[in-house]
Structures are given as structure tokens and as C-alpha cells.
């Protein structure tokens, strides 16, 4: 088979050393990727515990454990942590580990900046969480931090602002690094239309981050100035505007939602073909959809503001509904990839299929909210809570788990237990639906989001209890996953280079890959170079 030599490495490769210091000072994209995973799952644990505490309080009407001020901190930090410290860094972790491998590169374009953008994450995260230990507690104005209620907050709110500014710098540096890496460091033959679809998703995510995060930075600086410098940006009595915050925040916030889901689309679009034994049905259609969504996501921000009575309703309604077109194309492509395939229902595939089934619900229930007249009824109710969790949990977290089971053997040299993986999947699927499906009905029955308590006569009690039981089931599923990881890591390394018959370049190197990634690269003539290499090997009778 045709093989091109990997380029000579001019800098001497130090012997891989173990020990804490090598991890703290590493600039290897694979190790930084692992650090991203450790950091993200740690914060996932924290955010998950906060969610369980919230669900515990809401299981019954009345105040049992958390008085309103404590509850308000719980949901604020839950949202902030899950969005900024779990999902986004988690997808960046996959990007860090696999983008250089996918494009046949040695490392990221700027390895030291890469290390910096990782280490800013725990710094920013701990800054935000440290609010719990200040007088007055952590930030308590919601992850959207609407003014003026956020202007009334104490030290915790300042820590929240500073923490998010730090996280913004981290995301921006990471995004620039990804774009430069993808545009400049591709191996010979790896043209843009041969990029793995996951790399496209990282590219789209990074462009969104580069162009959207600055709006959040601006908003945060203005809020900090109003809090401490006596400025009047959000004070209507002195000529300011409270809706200015919402415009700036959602100009960032809606692209942010796509930054949180594109990576999962990319992961699932990698896994479905591998486990169906077929190519992705419409590669160009999927890439085009990613790019359309990237562009459209900058035109829809005010659909979060329909009920303010201050935005152009038909415009933001039609742009929002237009996004369902490329999203629909993704579903058709995923289904067509399965059609007449040979589906191997290993855990990565189970989670990918679960992703399709659940994300579909999150996509469809968004259609109601896109129509302003309907949105007046359901916005700021539990309908929206259900919707966002069907997208970000039913979508992204299922996608993340698919990716973990898929790539765990590549990253650690050990495959996660399939048996435990199946248990994990089914408990997570059931727990997830039990938690979030009833929230649709709660929303339709008028339960507003972000309330610390509700009256027993509103007809919300049973569904809330159901959601709480479901939340604990999700907790159990995560414990199964944790157990699976711990048990697997104690086993000897036995994973082969290509356990799933993969398509992309990471499966061409050892599990785990050497520090310089590749000893040899196959010739890249399609977006499935490793598939091509496997075929060529079969054709030549097993000779390599």
C-alpha cells in the first residue's frame, strides 16, 4: 500500500516521563486533551451535584433544605458550570486530542498557547465557584445574569464576571489555535473536503467562538463598570437601557448554543458511519449545514427576547425557523447513513443512536418557541428548561458519551467495558427522559423556571417528584460510567490500533499514539483514509 513518510521532526522528542510535573508543564496536545477531560468531568460532577440539590428541593412544594437565596445560587452556578466549564471545554478536549490526529499533524499550531488556554480554565472556574465562600454567597442572578437584578448581587457576582472573562480568553485562544491548526497543518493530501466531519465541526465552533465571545466580554465589562465605576449603561433613569444587556448577551448566547452542540454533531457524524460500515451519506450536505448554521446563528439572538415587547418579531421568528432547515438535513443524513448499513450496536453506537432520538425532541420542541405568539406562553417556563436539556443533555451529553466510549481505547489503550456501557446507556436514557420530559408538561401548566418553591395547589407536584427521581437515576448512570472508567484504567493496556475499523487517521497509529503521533501516514485520497488503507491491504492479500 502507498505510504508517505511522516515529516522529519527537527526538535528532539524528549522521552515521555511520568509524574505530576510533566502533566503540569506539558504542551502535547494529547495530554492537554486529557487534562481538558479531567477538568471538565470534575466540573460536571460539581454541576451535577448542584442539579441534584435543586431537584431535591423541588421534589415537594415548600422549603425543605434550601431557602430562596441558596436555591438561586444553585441554579446560577449549575447553568454556568455546565455550559462554560463542562460542555464547551469537554468538546474542546476532544478537539485538542483528535484534531491534530485527524489531519495528520504533529501537534496544535501554538502548543504553548494551547497549554495556557487550558490552564486558564480551572483558574476561571475556581474564581466563579469561590463565590460560595464569600459573604452573601455565589452569583445568584442566573447564568444569563440579566440586569438590573445582577447589579444587586454581592461579591459572588463580581467573581462570576471575572471568572467568565478569564474563561472567555481561554476559549478565544483555543479557538484561534484550532482554526490556524486546521487551515495550516493538514498532512499532504488532506484537502478541506477530505477533512473528517468532526474537524469541520471544530472549525465551525471555533469561528463562532472567535466572533461571538467578544460580545459577552463587552457585556461583562459594561456590567462590571455599572457595578463599580458608577457608569449608567443599564440604568434607565440616567439614559441607559436594561435591554442592552440582553442584546449583547444573546448575541453571544445563541451562537454559544451552537458552540455547545456542533462538536457533538461532529462526533456522532464520525461514529455513525464507522458502526454502520458505510460512508457518511451526504458529506457535503453536512458540511454545508454546519456552515449555514454557523452563519444563521448570528441572526437569531432576539428570539430569546420575544416577551420583552421590544424586538422585531417576524424577522427573528423567520431566521429562527430557517435554522431548522440545515438541522433537518443533518437528521436525513444520519438516517440515510444507517439505511442498509450493518449496524454494530456497541456502546459508542448506542449513545450515537440515543443522541439522534433525543436531540430530535430538543429540535422539535424548539419549533413552538420559535413562533412568537406561542413563545409568549412558554418562554421562561419549564418548557424552555426541557428544551435546552433535550438539546444539551439529550444532544450534547449523549454525543460526548458516544465520543468517550469511541475514543477511550485510542486515548488510554484500554476499551471501556461494553457490558457496563450498556447499563450506563439505558439508565442514562431512562433517567434523562424521566427528568426532562415531564418538564414540558410543567411548562405548559405554567410553572416558571428559576423558582425556589411552588404552591401545592398548582398541579405541579407529581411531575416535579418524577423529575427528581429521574435526576437521581441520571446520577446513578454517571456513577456506572465512573466505575467503568476506574475499572478499565486498572486493566492492562490491550487495545489494538483500530478496534472499531475506523475511517480517520487516528486509527492508523498506535493506541495510545506516540508523542509525535504518527510513524507513517497512509496516502490521503478521500475523507476515509484509513478505510482506503484497509481496503488496499485486503486487495494486496494482507501484505502491508
Amino acid at each position, binding site marked *: 500500500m502507498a505510504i*508517505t513518510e511522516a*515529516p522529519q521532526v527537527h526538535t528532539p522528542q524528549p522521552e515521555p516521563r511520568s509524574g505530576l510535573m510533566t502533566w503540569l508543564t506539558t504542551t502535547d496536545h494529547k495530554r492537554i486533551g486529557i487534562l481538558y477531560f479531567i477538568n471538565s468531568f470534575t466540573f460536571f460532577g460539581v454541576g451535577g451535584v448542584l442539579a441534584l440539590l435543586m431537584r431535591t428541593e423541588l421534589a415537594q412544594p415548600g422549603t425543605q433544605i434550601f431557602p430562596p437565596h441558596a436555591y438561586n445560587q444553585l441554579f446560577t452556578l449549575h447553568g454556568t458550570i455546565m455550559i462554560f466549564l463542562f460542555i464547551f471545554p469537554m468538546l474542546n478536549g476532544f478537539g485538542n486530542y483528535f484534531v491534530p490526529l485527524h489531519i495528520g*499533524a*504533529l501537534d496544535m*499550531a*501554538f502548543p504553548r498557547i494551547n497549554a495556557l488556554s487550558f490552564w486558564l480554565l480551572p483558574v476561571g472556574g475556581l474564581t466563579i465557584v469561590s463565590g460560595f465562600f464569600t459573604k452573601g454567597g455565589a452569583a445568584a442572578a442566573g447564568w444569563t445574569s440579566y440586569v438590573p437584578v445582577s447589579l444587586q448581587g454581592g461579591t459572588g457576582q463580581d467573581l462570576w464576571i471575572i471568572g467568565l472573562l478569564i474563561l472567555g480568553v481561554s476559549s*478565544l485562544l483555543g*479557538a*484561534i*489555535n484550532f*482554526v*490556524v491548526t486546521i*487551515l*495550516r*497543518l*493538514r*498532512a*499532504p*493530501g488532506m*484537502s478541506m473536503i477530505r477533512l473528517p466531519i468532526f474537524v469541520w465541526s471544530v472549525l465551525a465552533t471555533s469561528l463562532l467562538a*472567535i*466572533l*461571538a*465571545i*467578544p*460580545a459577552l*466580554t*463587552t*457585556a461583562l*465589562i*459594561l456590567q462590571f*463598570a455599572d457595578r463599580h*465605576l*458608577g*457608569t*449608567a*449603561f443599564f*440604568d434607565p433613569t*440616567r*439614559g*441607559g*437601557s436594561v435591554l*442592552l444587556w440582553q*442584546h*449583547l448577551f444573546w*448575541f453571544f448566547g445563541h451562537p454559544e448554543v451552537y458552540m455547545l452542540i456542533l462538536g457533538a454533531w461532529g462526533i456522532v457524524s464520525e461514529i455513525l458511519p464507522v458502526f454502520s460500515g458505510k460512508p457518511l451519506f451526504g458529506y457535503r450536505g453536512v458540511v454545508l449545514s454546519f456552515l449555514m448554521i454557523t452563519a444563521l446563528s448570528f441572526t437569531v439572538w432576539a428570539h430569546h427576547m420575544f416577551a420583552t415587547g421590544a424586538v422585531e418579531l417576524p424577522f427573528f421568528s423567520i431566521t429562527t425557523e430557517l435554522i431548522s432547515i440545515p438541522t433537518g438535513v443533518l437528521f436525513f443524513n444520519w438516517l440515510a447513513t444507517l439505511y442498509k448499513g450493518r449496524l454494530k450496536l456497541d456502546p459508542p453506537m448506542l449513545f450515537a443512536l440515543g443522541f439522534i432520538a433525543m436531540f430530535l425532541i430538543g429540535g422539535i420542541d424548539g419549533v413552538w418557541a420559535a413562533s412568537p405568539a406561542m413563545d409568549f406562553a412558554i418562554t421562561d417556563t419549564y418548557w424552555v428548561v426541557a428544551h435546552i436539556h433535550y438539546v444539551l443533555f439529550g444532544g450534547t451529553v449523549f454525543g460526548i458519551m458516544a465520543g468517550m466510549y469511541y475514543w477511550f481505547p485510542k486515548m488510554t489503550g484500554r476499551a471501556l467495558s461494553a457490558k457496563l456501557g450498556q447499563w450506563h446507556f439505558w439508565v442514562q436514557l431512562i433517567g434523562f427522559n424521566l427528568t426532562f420530559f415531564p418538564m414540558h408538561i410543567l411548562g405548559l401548566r405554567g410553572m416558571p423556571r428559576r423558582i425556589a418553591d411552588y404552591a401545592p395547589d398548582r398541579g405541579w407536584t407529581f411531575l416535579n417528584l418524577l423529575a427528581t427521581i429521574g435526576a437521581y437515576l441520571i446520577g446513578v448512570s454517571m456513577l456506572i460510567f465512573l466505575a467503568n472508567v476506574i475499572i478499565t484504567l486498572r486493566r492492562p493496556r490491550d487495545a489494538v490500533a483500530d478496534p472499531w475499523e475506523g475511517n480517520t487517521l487516528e486509527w492508523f497509529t498506535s493506541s495510545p499514539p506516540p508523542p509525535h503521533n504518527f510513524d507513517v501516514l497512509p*496516502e490521503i*485520497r478521500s475523507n476515509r483514509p484509513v478505510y482506503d488503507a484497509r481496503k488496499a491491504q485486503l486487495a494486496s492479500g494482507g501484505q502491508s
Partner: protein
Amino acid sequence: MSLAETITDERAVRGTSSPVLGMVLFVASEAMFFGALFGAYFTIYSGASSWPPKGIETNIGIPAVLTALLISSSITLQLGVAAVRRGRMDRLNRWLELTLVLGIAFLVLQAYDYSQLNFGIREGVFPSLFYVMTGLHMAHVIGGAVLLGMVYVQARTGQLSMERHEPVESAAIYWHFVDVVWIGLFSVFYLATMR
């Protein structure tokens, strides 16, 4: 796939301009940052009954000089870029020195301009916008000056050459951007508010 593509290591060739591409992306992000600030300006402007509010006076004299300083500094820097591209390192040093002097003159004169104003940051939304936007721009000018200073040190210590001039290119892209932002600020805070 063409033959050239298979035999050339594209990483070595394309890799050379990564810092410049990185700077272009960073500047794109910075453009969105100032874009959001200008968005805030126009949101508040469109809801205001009089602009600037009564009692607020901005004098166009010093800012006009500031604009001239910054535009000249962009020209001198670009002459420096042209020099390094032709390998004229001595000229690069001269142009970098001149650019830095113009940049520092801008900062000093703007600080003086602040001291002459008849309003403070707490006195309403116009002063809020004025001080925060020009202040953030000033921080960017300082950042740009530091960047140019680092390039200057590289130039003086012989780390730059005709082949290796990306640091100058990158710094120039950033400096021109800061210049363009100032023209925007000059327009909305001085030209548009002349009575």
C-alpha cells in the same frame, strides 16, 4: 491530487504564516469586541432625546491631533514593514522608533485631553460610553505599543530578517486595527456630536 501536493510537505510551507493568520483571527475577534461596544453606543443613542446630553462638551481640537498622530504612526509602521520585506533592517529600526514615539505621544496627549474634560464617568450615559470606549481603546494602544516594543527589541537584536518578518507583519495588523477603531471613536464622539 496533483503531484506537487504529494511531494511537498505542506506543513513546512504553510506553517510559516501561522502567526500572521493567528493575528488576523485575533483582530477579527477584537473587531467584534469593539463592534459590540459601538452597538451599545447606537442602542443608547437611538433611545436618547438629545445627544450629547446638555452640559456635556467635547472639544474637537486635541482629538483631531490625536487622529493625525495615530494615522501617521500607521504609515510609518507600514513603511517599516516594506523595509523589512526588502531586507533593509536599518530602516526598519528607524521606522519602528518613529512609530513608537508617535504612539506614546498619542497616549500622553489623550491623558491630557481627559484632564481637560468638563464631565466625569458617573455623570450619565454619554460620559459612561465615552470613558469606557476610549479607555478600552487606550488599553489597546498600550498593548500595541508593548507589542511594537517587543518587535523593536527583536529587530535590534538581529532576530528579524527578510525571511523572518512575521512579527512585524502581525504587530502591524494589530496596530492598523487599533488605528481604525480610533477613527470610529473619533467619528461618534467628536464629529457626530459637534454642535
